[in-house]
């Protein structure tokens, strides 16, 4: 489903963001990408949503090489992915439901389908009661849940989460990780970049560790397939 084959990413002045990275993520897997800041976690995620292209090697998403995508194909790819960031990236002047609906509107979804779908995902992330709240009226954890709802609304086959708990307190972190596990249990693959090793230890999912752009550890265990979320 997601394949990295000997991927290198070099920037000018000989700085390497990724060095010879090879790994494969299967449908429905939950994978942690760990490593210090600057290890290359975000670059890996960016390569998946074609925000960046390899200098060498190949990244395939659903069988398609990202380097061969035409500019107009990139939005189509991103509609099949869910992307969540550390800083939530919500539109500040729109309510929770408008933020979620926006991801459907840009795809040209039928208007009569948008409302029910938005309500369903907001309920899924536990925010049905706060659908009309603006981002600044929500806590950090709640804002991240809105961002996750937005990522889910197009029924992605994989959710890419870049340090989704980086701005959250411990309790909110637990809630968000639990939510990601539930999403994964419903069949959506999750690729989560985090430097929080406590989260990684508690979950016991496949873990890929990066250091200076290279994979230094890959547990290679497909623990998530079929695993029920723990409460």
């Amino acid at each position, binding site marked *: 489903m997601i394949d990295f084959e000997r991927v290198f990413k070099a920037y000018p002045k000989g700085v390497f963001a990724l060095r010879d990275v090879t790994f494969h993520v299967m449908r429905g897997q939950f994978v942690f990408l760990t490593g210090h800041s600057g290890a290359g976690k975000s670059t890996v995620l960016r390569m998946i*949503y074609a*925000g960046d292209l390899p200098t060498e090697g190949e990244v395939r998403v659903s069988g398609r090489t990202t380097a061969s995508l035409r*500019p*107009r194909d990139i*939005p*189509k*790819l*991103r*509609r099949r992915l869910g*992307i969540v960031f550390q800083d939530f*990236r*919500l*539109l500040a*002047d729109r309510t929770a439901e408008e933020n979620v609906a*926006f*991801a459907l*509107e*840009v*795809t040209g979804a039928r208007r009569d389908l948008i409302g029910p779908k938005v309500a369903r995902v907001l309920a899924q992330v536990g925010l049905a009661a706060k659908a009309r709240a603006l981002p600044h009226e929500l806590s950090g954890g709640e804002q991240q849940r809105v961002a996750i709802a*937005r990522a889910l609304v*197009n029924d992605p086959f994989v959710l890419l989460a870049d340090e989704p708990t980086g701005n959250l307190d411990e309790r909110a972190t637990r809630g968000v990780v639990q939510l990601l596990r539930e999403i994964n249990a419903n069949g959506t693959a999750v690729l989560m970049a985090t430097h929080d090793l406590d989260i990684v230890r508690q979950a016991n999912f496949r873990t890929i560790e990066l250091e200076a752009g290279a994979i230094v550890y890959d547990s290679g265990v497909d623990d998530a397939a079929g695993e029920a979320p723990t409460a």
Partner: protein
Amino acid sequence: MRLALREAIRSFGRTPVLSLLSVTTIAFALFVVGLVMLVGINVRAAIEQVGERVEVVMYLRRGTPLEAATVAMEDILAFPEVADAGYVSEEEALRRARAELEEFQDVFDDLAQNPLPASIEVRLLPAFRDAVHVEEVAQRLRGFRFTEDVRYGRDWIAKLDRLRSIAAAVSFLISAAFVAASIIIIGTTIRLTVLQRSREIAIMRFVGATSGFIRLPFLLEGAFKGAMGGVLALGMSYGAFLVVNRLVLEGRFFAPAEALGFVLAGMLLGLVASAASVGRHLQEV
């Protein structure tokens, strides 16, 4: 399209100060262009007024029968360059001379015989009031067998031609310079709006919005601001025109079609500036 329109209106309302600022900037940029164009239109109108006086006079040999002159006039009126032709008899020529040259009344009274010849005065259509066409018409008039002489202000028409060319070139250069300056000003103003919404554009990008989808609200907003700026600039130009008209000299304002063209040009400028700014930004994010 409906969604794009909603987004454009939302964006306009979300940052009212910036939006008003950009409309005002566009209005002032177009106001300067409008003034330059008004000056150009009025200078051209003044030159055309002078051009009204371009006339070729064909003097007839003494004794040319009126019938022959009438037939000649019909031929002359059929020339494509000719707007009008009028016969001036010998008596009429003398009457005019008496009226125009009052100080020579005594000389006229002493005349035993009218020395002035009959003539045909030929006025040309506006498009042919230049030295080349006037000379062509004069040549043809000389071809009539009863033509005594053909006169027109050769030097004067050449000067008028030069004046026309200079006015056209200066008007074009100044207008082009001001239009270029307004494109830059409008482009910068719209770019501010785009930068102000760069975060939103980035969000649109990663939820899978196409470039066209992202671009459309900006284009609508740019066109709307351009049109608003155009209307405001037109209003300011009219105000300036009224003041000049009252205090300095009488001129003419834009005709309705020109005014509409001015607003449409503002709209187009807004649209193009938006397209360029968003396009550049989309390449960056």
